């Protein structure tokens, strides 16, 4: 029935009436904002009605792909005529900015690695002059390896900002900085002084989501953000303290360097107190070497406070015995943990070669550290799903057994082996694993092959059937 109707109206369309040109103005400008800028500009030649439709697009996204070609096949480092590209690009953006009448809600300029910073200065200058307080979302990123961009002060006066991302920039707050009253999302990968970052955070009262990659070393970072819900920190901190973040539920901490033992004047301090005060969090991720920051000094058996809300924990470890102690300390303090993901960082080639060699028996003291001798007090009483990534040797199993014997309601344990482990060895590991005692009577251990981290993220890709035994399931 519907088909006949379509055909009927279709016939009307065929007689040459233009139905599209008169769509409501705001609808049209939001449509044109979804089109690559180049295509949007080209609509100006369609007819008089279309002449100035594109100039009021609210979202302006400059990156070379979207700007220069409508297909996405343009490669960043394609040619030797980068100099030409630079002047062409710069000229085009100049022209565009001068024609846009706004109001511009979103301005995004990402990875113009070929451009020199004076162009950015000019555009941001124009933008600040013409659009100023209307901008809600400002995104600026350049490629880290090449240069650092000094963000002009005018950006810090955009009073309407809700969303700010500045990646690989150097930031300095202007003396008259009044804060961003509406900012809820802040994503920084920046060189910025401790005072400035602390001031910036505390002057954004509505901040809910923050990711900070700090390129400066901070003695102690104090975060004051009463509405913060999501926090991701990546950097080298002697200490972190967080106050008045009662809504915080999601925390991810990462460090790609070890705690700075050898910095003259001050040694590192343990981050145990920091972790211990994250009272309301539901999800905690400790990535790369961050766990090392919990291993400074004496690792306590439990955190100073019991954190009842935590349901999800993700840790990466290098397998030194103290890390296991730190994990046990965390696990004992999170009685309601439901999901646990442990990743052995054995994927960086060369770095942990020792790990891939099977060693003999571990000594008594070390055995205890590995969790072997932890009494089975079922401290993981709510844990129902475990994922273990990158097992490389038999001694890894000791900690896994400790988990199995302390988790009475465990339902699934997914296992991935390290990709450098040979098939024969995998079989031995699995045989050993399946022989483990477990507290839960219905737990299922699922082996999913070698773990392969993708280039861009740490999401799990499925098994590689060529080298390893295919999926093995065991239900007890």
């Amino acid at each position, binding site marked *: 029935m*519907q088909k006949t109707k379509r055909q009927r109206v279709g016939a009307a369309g065929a007689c040459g009436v233009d*139905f*599209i040109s008169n769509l*409501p103005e705001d609808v049209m400008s939001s449509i044109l904002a979804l089109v690559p800028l180049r295509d949007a500009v*080209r*609509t100006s030649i*369609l*007819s*008089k009605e279309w002449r100035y439709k594109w100039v009021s697009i609210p979202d302006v996204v400059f990156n070379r792909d979207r700007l220069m070609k*409508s297909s996405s096949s343009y490669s960043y480092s394609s040619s030797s005529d980068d100099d030409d590209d630079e002047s062409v690009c710069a000229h085009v953006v100049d022209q565009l900015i001068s024609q846009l009448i706004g109001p511009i809600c979103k301005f995004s300029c990402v990875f113009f690695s070929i451009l020199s910073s004076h162009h950015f200065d000019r555009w941001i200058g124009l933008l600040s002059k013409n659009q100023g307080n209307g901008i809600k979302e400002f995104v600026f990123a350049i490629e880290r390896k090449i240069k650092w961009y000094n963000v002009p002060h005018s950006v810090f006066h955009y009073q309407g900002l809700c969303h700010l991302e500045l990646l690989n920039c150097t930031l300095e707050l202007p003396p008259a900085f009044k804060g961003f009253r509406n900012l809820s999302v802040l994503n920084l990968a920046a060189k910025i002084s401790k005072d400035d970052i602390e001031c910036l955070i505390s002057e954004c009262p509505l901040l809910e989501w923050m990711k900070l990659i700090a390129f400066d070393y901070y003695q102690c970072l104090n975060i004051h953000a009463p509405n913060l819900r999501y926090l991701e920190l990546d950097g080298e901190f002697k200490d972190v303290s967080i106050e008045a973040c009662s809504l915080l539920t999601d925390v991810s901490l990462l460090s790609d360097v070890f705690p700075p033992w050898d910095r003259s004047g001050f040694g590192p301090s343990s981050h145990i107190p920091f972790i211990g005060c994250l009272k309301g969090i539901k999800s905690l991720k400790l990535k790369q070497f961050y766990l090392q920051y919990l291993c400074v000094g004496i690792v306590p058996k439990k955190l100073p406070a019991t954190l009842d809300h935590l349901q999800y924990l993700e840790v990466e470890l290098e397998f030194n015995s103290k890390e296991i102690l730190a994990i046990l300390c965390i696990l004992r303090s999170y009685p309601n943990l439901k999901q646990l993901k442990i990743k052995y960082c054995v994927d960086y080639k060369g770095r942990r070669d020792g790990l891939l060699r099977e060693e003999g028996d571990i000594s008594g003291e070390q055995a205890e550290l590995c969790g072997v001798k932890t009494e089975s007090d079922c401290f993981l009483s709510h844990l129902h799903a475990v994922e273990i990534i990158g097992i490389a040797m038999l001694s890894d199993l000791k900690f896994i057994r400790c988990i199995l014997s302390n988790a009475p309601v465990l339902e699934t344990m997914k296992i991935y082996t390290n990709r450098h482990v040979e098939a024969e060895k995998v079989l031995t590991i699995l045989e050993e694993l399946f022989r483990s005692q477990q507290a839960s009577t219905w737990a299922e251990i699922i082996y999913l092959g070698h773990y392969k981290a993708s280039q861009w993220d740490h999401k799990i890709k499925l098994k590689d059937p060529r080298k390893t035994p295919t999926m093995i399931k065991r239900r007890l």
Partner: protein
Amino acid sequence: MASTSNSTSSKIITLRSSDGEVFEVEESVALESNLIRRMMEDDCANNIIPLPNVTAPIFYLVIEHCKKHAEMKDNKEKKKELRSQGEELLKSDPHTYSNLMEAVNYLDIKSLMDLTAQWLADFLKGKSPRLIRELLKIKNDFTPEEEAEILERNRWAFD
């Protein structure tokens, strides 16, 4: 038309299109429309809700797409399929497209607004102005001088 789904307890909302046809729609579907939501909150929805700007065939399309949209929430394949349907509709029947777009805008349905906007955006991507004019029946009313001026203004985009 609405109660094909299994929820027995769901409330039914009655709506009337501009050409007098009466529709019974599940509340959960009807509330996708912020306009209807506001009308219900203002309590003018005890009786039949009139929709003076939407005709029956277009309203039928709106409901159909609301349901499709709800179905495809976590289904990438279906999402892709739904997104690709715009090209065909715009080529064969731009009139229905514009009616649908205006209805969705009037009813203030966010999910469908995003979808139908994406349809036209995808349609405009990469096509030459000449082809766009032809398919959408847009009449070129520029003089050659005016056209030359526009080309000159943003030469990079037309190369």
